[in-house]
């Protein structure tokens, strides 16, 4: 049925071209087409503008490097309003701190602190070390993915392979309802209910931590992974399944050895898009992870994610300040990462799916 629809479309567009070459010129038609084309370009323009404007605000950090270190020091000082004498003491103190630190931040360049281990943007001597934020994001994302991916894939297998058609018609829309829950509601639920329940079960110290945040963010990713996996599973040709069942395999064996292998690229794409959702999730991270930027591998410690940092601090920074630029830099990193994930899911995995079925036709 699907194939016939695709053929129709091709015929349709082909026919249109033939018909319209013979028609006489009509201004309204010509104008409408131009306007529609121009508007359709808007989505491309928006993506490019996002690129430009998020990067533009992040760029000054790298420009500061090119100035002499002395001028950078005054710059930093200006934005925090210290007087001359304070300046020298601050500078001395800085040097001491730097000497005692093994980190290679040898002077006050804000961009040099980007690779350090402390995120302390609001202090006399601001440090913009992104490592704790990276690590925190990684930890939360991993927890969320380990929770959401297996459960959504299993649920999708049940819906596609085992459920009766009538049950399926109920399960699918109900799980998709979860996609309609605003992330602030899931965050609120995590903050009010899950945090307390998990603390009672596991008995850890800080109520809000990577684990609670991870599970809550997993909830936000479940409908994405579930829906796309289910699509991938049902896209496997019926003939495969019938052949397997006809040879005497059980439905589980068919699911395991026939349907799942055939749907692997689609499932990967689903997980990758789920990962993108978790990675950029802001409100749940803000509300449920505790927001403490520290370096630890314990899943029950508080963490601060990249996106939550932007959400929490952007409202308080001064326009054009170093801190402001660093937050935009974090935004650029988030944007590049999700853009790349989407591109991989879109081009790489989709090509795999298409090649698989076409070679078997």
């Amino acid at each position, binding site marked *: 049925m699907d194939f016939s629809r695709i053929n129709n479309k091709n015929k349709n567009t082909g026919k249109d071209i033939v018909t319209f070459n013979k028609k006489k010129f009509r201004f309204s038609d010509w104008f409408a087409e131009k306007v529609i084309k121009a508007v359709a370009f808007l989505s491309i323009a928006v993506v490019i503008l996002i690129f430009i404007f998020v990067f533009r605000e992040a760029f000054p950090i790298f420009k500061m490097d090119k100035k002499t270190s002395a001028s950078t020091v005054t710059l930093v000082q200006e934005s925090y309003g210290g007087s001359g004498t304070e300046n020298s003491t601050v500078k001395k103190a800085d040097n001491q701190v730097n000497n005692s630190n093994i980190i290679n931040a040898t002077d006050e360049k804000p961009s040099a602190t980007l690779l350090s281990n402390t995120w302390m943007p609001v202090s006399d001597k601001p440090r913009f070390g992104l490592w704790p934020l990276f690590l925190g994001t990684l930890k939360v994302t991993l927890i969320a993915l380990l929770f959401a991916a297996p459960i959504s894939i299993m649920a999708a297998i049940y819906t596609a392979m085992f459920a009766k058609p009538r049950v399926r018609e109920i399960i699918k829309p109900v799980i998709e309802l979860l996609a309609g829950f605003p992330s602030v509601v899931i965050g609120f639920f995590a903050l009010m209910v899950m945090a307390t329940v998990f603390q009672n079960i596991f008995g850890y110290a800080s109520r809000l931590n990577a684990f609670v945040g991870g599970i809550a963010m997993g909830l936000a990713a479940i409908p994405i992974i579930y829906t796309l996996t289910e699509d991938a599973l049902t896209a496997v040709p019926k003939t495969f399944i019938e052949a397997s069942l006809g040879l005497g395999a059980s439905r589980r064996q068919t699911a395991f050895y026939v349907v799942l292998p055939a749907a692997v690229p689609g499932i990967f794409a689903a997980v990758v898009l789920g990962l993108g959702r978790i990675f950029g999730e802001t409100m749940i991270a803000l509300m449920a992870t505790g927001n403490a930027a520290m370096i630890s591998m314990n899943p029950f410690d508080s963490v601060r994610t990249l996106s939550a940092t932007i959400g929490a601090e952007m409202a308080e920074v001064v326009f054009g300040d170093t801190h402001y630029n660093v937050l935009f830099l974090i935004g650029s990193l988030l944007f590049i990462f999700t853009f790349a*994930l*989407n591109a991989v899911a*879109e081009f790489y995995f989709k090509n795999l799916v298409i090649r698989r079925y076409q070679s078997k036709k």
Partner: protein
Amino acid sequence: MNRNVKDTIFEGLTGISVLLIIFIIVSILAITIVGGWPNLNWTFLSEFPKDGMTKGGIFPAIVGTAVMTIIMAIAAVPFGVITAIYLAEYASEKSVIAKIIRFAVKTLAVVPSIIFGLFGLGFFIGFIGKNMDGLLNGGELRWGQPNILWASLTMALLTLPVVIVSVEEAIRTIPREMREASLALGATKWQTIRKVVLPGSVSGILTGTILAVSRGAGEVAPILFTGAAYFLSNLPHSLSDQFMSLGYHIYIMSTQSSNVDATQPIQFATTLVLLLLTFSLNAVAVTLRYRIRKKAK
């Protein structure tokens, strides 16, 4: 192990996964309803917050959310519908431009919402707003700061893909024969789109709009620094005013409020209002979409 036993275990595990997800959905709904219902009454919906936001209602947040989503829909729906028309009617399957547009739409759909917030701040407020102030107000600060217009436009960009996808799907369900009949009667392509394609996809446009409104009403990250306000004693009466929003209100009340425990009933009731709003909108959209898909078969 016996094959039948393995089969049963595997089927059981997958079934349990489904039940677990449904259990989570039901418990979120149930806990929000139980926690919020006792406090949900007419005064709560129609009053301003009182006593440093520890008492009173959420009227300005409801109005703010409504106004913001209306402006957002006015901006997003026409652009979304036109892009969908281009993708479904004008672009051929193989056209490179159409492929790039499709990729751009997908990118917009997966970009984290906080990035839209940054973009709104950098582009709408920092670039357009600042320049508007320079040209119109002689440098006096009016548009170069967070307000409801910039928040709505930021949200419109976020919801654009939602509209495009729904409308394109609906346009594609219109039978080819109807277009051909129209063309055969001598109608031009634009006339066919206006008189045959668009009327046939009204339910799709409606679905897209409802989904976009539901998404826009629930998102908080894009408006965090483009226009949402902590507390306002007035409703917004111009596009350059800030506004209160339900989602932002929940976030503020549950994390930044001076007395989180005392305001818990307000938090739950606000969450219930937001959840009911997005939930009912989604239910309508899902039903509409289900009908469209059934018609297509």
